[in-house]
């Protein structure tokens, strides 16, 4: 275990429902993620990828096992404490973009900074800078309805990185995009990982997209089936 470890899952289980209807979506996950990793999480539909991502993203709590995020035992935290953890260390990119409708790109990107109580001037500057980094300079005043899918996902990425998060979590970020646009998004994530040192954990179905990552984790039926550096077998 290096001191570069920022995420450590040990024996994580997640059970939905109870009694007869109980369903175990995660059956014991052991996983460590280092600072600066670029991870592609793969596996068939229903294998527990999103469930694991939600736990890593502190949106959900495990039913069993322990989850340490930067040394903090997340499963012991309250709902609000987890919210603060997300606010300060995590960025999210969703398959469906989840931008606020009828709200300009700039205001969408500013949203996390509002919760961090940054003054308006600082927010504007930071949001412009983030939009520039995702290649959307000049699109600040456009609303999601006026942007293409790829552009919307770029806005979402800008919103995720505007707070300088330690970890960026992306659950099927290219699931709604065509191949060319997907590749552009992957280039962007690669750049952010390489140049800004942001740890990226991304779920994808497509091997072509996973190929951008440095490490691949395969889920199967609620367990980690395979975990290997890109190119090499585990």
């Amino acid at each position, binding site marked *: 275990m290096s001191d570069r470890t920022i995420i450590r899952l040990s024996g994580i289980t997640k059970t939905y429902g109870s009694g007869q209807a109980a369903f175990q979506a995660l059956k014991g996950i052991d996983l460590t993620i280092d600072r600066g990793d670029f991870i592609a999480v793969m596996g068939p539909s229903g294998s527990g990828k999103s469930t694991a991502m*939600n736990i890593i*993203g502190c*949106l*959900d709590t495990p039913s069993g096992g322990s989850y340490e995020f930067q040394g903090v035992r997340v499963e012991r935290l309250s*709902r*609000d404490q987890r*919210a*603060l*953890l*997300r*606010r*300060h260390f*995590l960025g*999210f990119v*969703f398959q*469906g973009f*989840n*931008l*606020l*409708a*009828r709200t300009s790109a700039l205001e969408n990107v500013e*949203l*996390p900074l*509002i*919760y*961090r*109580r940054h003054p308006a001037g600082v927010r504007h500057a930071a949001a412009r800078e983030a939009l520039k980094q995702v290649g959307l300079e000049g699109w600040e005043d456009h609303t999601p309805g006026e942007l293409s899918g790829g552009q919307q996902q770029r806005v979402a990425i800008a*919103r995720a990185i505007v707070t300088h998060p330690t970890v960026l979590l992306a659950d099927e970020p290219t699931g709604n995009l065509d191949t060319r646009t997907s590749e552009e998004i992957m280039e962007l994530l690669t750049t952010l990982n390489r140049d800004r040192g942001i740890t990226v954990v991304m779920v994808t179905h497509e091997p072509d997209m996973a190929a951008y990552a440095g490490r691949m984790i395969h889920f199967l039926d609620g367990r980690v089936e395979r975990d290997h550096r890109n190119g090499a077998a585990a």
Partner: protein
Amino acid sequence: MLWNTFLLALRSIRRNVLRSFLTILGIVIGVAAVVTMVTLGNGATKSVADQISSMGSNLLLILPGQRFGPGSSGAPNFKVADVEAIRNQIAGAKLAAPVVTKVATAVYQAQNWSTSVVGSDDQYFESGNWELTEGRIFNDAEMRAGKAVCVIGSTVRKELFGGQNPVGADVRIKQFSCEVIGLLKAKGQSAMGRDQDDTVVMPLRTVQRRLAGSQDIDRIMVSVRDGASIDAVKDQLTLLLRERRNITSSENDDFRVMDTRQIAEALTSTTKILTMLLGAVAAVSLLVGGIGIMNIMLVSVTERTREIGTRLAIGALESEVLLQFLIEAVVLSSLGGLVGIALATVASIALAGVMQVPYLFSAGINALAFLFSAAIGVLFGYFPARRAARLDPIEALRHE
């Protein structure tokens, strides 16, 4: 944060102008009704109070029957002897004037005018605070003889004589002719919107004989001597009249002795009933308005589930989401309050003109109405806001 939330709320209201307007309609109507009603009520009360104080605070009014206004029949009317007994036996009574009122048409040359004819004696003018601008009031001989002489109010003068001096002219009232000997100084509108100057005053006996056809007196006006206790005089009057009307100790009074405060209350009692009715309407519409806000906020929470999920995911606290929706509800309902207040101001000014009462702006009632509408937002916005705040971020993000 708070300011941003406020701007956010304004923006979401602006995005849906029609819906927002319909939502706050209940509050608008409720607030407008309350503020208009209280404003007009204040105006009416003030004009009653003004009129009462112009009557002098030492005035007592004695009426037959237990109730004020029409419907007091059954109880016998008073006689001149009652008035004389009051003058002779009640030391605290400075003046006592018998009053008989009849409606009759006064005719002068080609002009005719329906007015209220009062039969009384010389004490009527002093106890009623009447002053003369022309001529004189009737003398003892005229009163005793029941002479056809009269003192007219300024409205009657205007209607019958225009700008002419009426003193010395003969006016026809019913089938008799009556000489105008004096002109009363204008008093203006009464509290209830009655024109006090629309009157003709004659000796009591003249009215009794020629118009009423009976010896009865409708009411007695008593002026309490300065320094005398009004309550004591009231008690003495009650005792005296009970005795004169042969009321046994087990029976209730069949007359009322009212002081100016009670007269004012009687005059404003209809306003009060109206106020209560309107108040009930306003309360219901405020409740409906509140429920409307709750409903629209619940719809909004459902519509914006994904947005709430996103906010929670990027680190919004439960309390911050709660506050956001609460502020939206409060902004919405306060907006309703403001529109209602504006509407009430316009309506009050217009209605005050129609109802002939003064328009009195009251900062207190307007501020109260505004605070109340904001409170409705808090009250009815809390439940939807809490629902939003307690959403599970994962499920909210998945929401279609």
